[in-house]
């Protein structure tokens, strides 16, 4: 029982309660907001964010101020690569997945190498990489035919697959289960937490610190690549800069989920709840009819308010 309780940690409960409250609020403000179909559609959007946040999550867990600001760039890149590889044909989906994962993994590898071999702080390394990726997007767009999503991919993302739930939500659930297993039940997972909470001690206990950190950045790149692929399915066509809007929200989702930006503490289940929470909040704000300036002020203040529930650090005086 106590194991069960410690597994379902506090922030997740809090996030779930808040999700219900927000849905209720949304329904009050604009009837129809919390209808079944709409909730599914919100979950699709949340899956996109949540998949990116999975990568962000492991990088943050790995410590040494881990953070990946380049996810937005990788998402955009992957959407463009996928669109061009599949170009509207279902037969192109598998090659597209391979190409996206390879690209995401490659840029993750570069991030990881910079962070470990050259010891560049992740914030700096990935911010720089974001700039490079944005430049690359412009370059590879020269003369390349634009891509269309394959119909099967679009169906996977937007149409029900089983039990009335779209494939992407199933995918997200599967990722959630795999992440929980990886973090709690594999040596790799334990090593992520180890390097996140005391890198030097982990090193002295034979943990391949660099290798793992590189792997984390590669994972982040690959999750972003998967999200980019799904985003292509969501929007049908690829376009430059699709990923930009996900950079900071992916971090916020992780924080909302109770993972500490200092590393070594937290998990993915909370992040999933955090992603849902964030998406619901954003949609409520789009549906209420006030000026954009008002929306932004409400959004900023609500973010702060919500962070008060979990994002808080420890008091210096124990």
């Amino acid at each position, binding site marked *: 029982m106590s194991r069960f309780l410690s597994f379902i940690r506090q922030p997740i409960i809090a996030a779930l309660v808040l999700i219900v409250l927000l849905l209720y609020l949304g329904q009050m403000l604009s009837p*129809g*907001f919390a209808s079944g179909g709409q909730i599914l559609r919100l979950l699709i959007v949340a899956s996109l964010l949540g998949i990116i946040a999975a990568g962000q999550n492991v990088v943050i867990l790995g410590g040494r101020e881990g953070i990946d600001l380049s996810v937005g760039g990788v998402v955009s890149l992957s959407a463009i690569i996928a669109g061009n590889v599949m170009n509207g044909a279902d037969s192109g989906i598998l090659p597209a997945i391979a190409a996206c994962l390879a690209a995401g993994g490659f840029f993750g590898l570069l991030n990881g190498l910079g962070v470990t071999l050259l010891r560049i702080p992740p914030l700096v390394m990935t911010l720089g990489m974001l700039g490079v990726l944005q430049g690359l997007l412009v370059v590879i*767009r020269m003369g390349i035919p634009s891509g269309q999503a394959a119909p099967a991919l679009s169906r996977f993302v937007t149409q029900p697959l089983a039990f009335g739930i779209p494939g992407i939500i199933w995918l997200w659930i599967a990722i959630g289960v795999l992440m929980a297993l990886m973090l709690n039940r594999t040596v790799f997972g334990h090593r992520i937490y180890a390097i996140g909470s005391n890198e030097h001690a982990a090193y002295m206990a034979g943990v391949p610190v660099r290798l793992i950190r590189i792997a984390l950045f590669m994972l982040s790149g690959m999750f972003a690549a998967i999200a980019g692929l799904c985003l292509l399915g969501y929007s049908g066509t690829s376009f430059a800069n699709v990923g930009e809007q996900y950079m900071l929200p992916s971090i916020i989702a992780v924080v909302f989920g109770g993972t500490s930006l200092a590393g070594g503490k937290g998990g993915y289940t909370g992040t999933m709840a955090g992603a849902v929470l964030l998406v619901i909040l954003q949609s409520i704000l*789009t549906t209420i009819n006030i000026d954009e300036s008002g929306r932004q002020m409400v959004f900023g203040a609500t973010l702060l308010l919500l962070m008060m529930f979990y994002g808080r650090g420890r008091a210096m005086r124990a």
Partner: protein
Amino acid sequence: ETFKIGLSNGWVGSEWRTQMIDEAKAAAAKWKEKGVDVEVSVQSANVDVPGQIAHIRNFIAEGVNAIIVNPNSPTAFDPIFAQAKEAGILVIATDAEVSSPDAIYVGIDQTAWGAAGAKWLAETLGGKGKVVAINGVAGHPANEMRVAGYRGVFKEHPDIQVVNEVNANWDQAQGQQAMQNVLATYPDINGVVVQDGMAAGAWKSIMDAGKKDQIAATGEIRKDFIDLWIKEKLNSGATVNPPGVMASALNVAVLMLQGKELKEPAKAGQYGNALYLPIPFIDSKNVEEAAKQLEGKPGYYSYTSSLSIEEAEALFK
């Protein structure tokens, strides 16, 4: 005759901008046939406002004859344009108007752009119905002008009710999400005014909700959307902000550098320095024609138009 023209673009986040630069370069090449050597020098990268001011400074240092800029801010360039003018450089803004009295604007009237779409929608809806608007970046001048444009039109149609206006930052995916949310809370809307860059996304949500026959919405000028439009027989109409505006601006610039004078000086617009270009409009009547122009082009390619050298010459005395 040799002219050196600097092109500055401060944001590279969309294909439209790339096409804009490409068309401008192509326009410069055309002048060769006329025996005029137009050398373009391009600065195009993501920069902040100081970064784009630095673009202009670099051009001044390089000693160009004219600068054409797609500005990151409408007002931030007044002092630097003054310096450029002092240095004898012709400054033309395109795509977004600038407040500087030392520059002229050559491009479309964004207010009219917004109005044209709204007018099409109002007519399509027969002057009554519930409408939502999906706008670009709040506070961005082009967005605010477009908003003013459609508001003005709807004011003339008292039976059209704008039930909500949301911002989706000219991002296709955000437009799609915004449309989803809107459809959930206003299931009975009849029309959508959505700016290009987001219209494809909004339409995707409309189609996903199975409402493509109940709702009329403005559209995109990208090839992939126009193809979809024809295929799905969408009830759409798209005002065109052609990426060719910079090419038009370049042609005007060369003629001005040759010492020609405009028949009607650029005096339009809120800043009194604008030379407005015609705004093409695509609706179900001429969408096939638009598709023909775009045949063989990549999906991100936009329907475009620009002043040819001859058309530009016609504006001058």
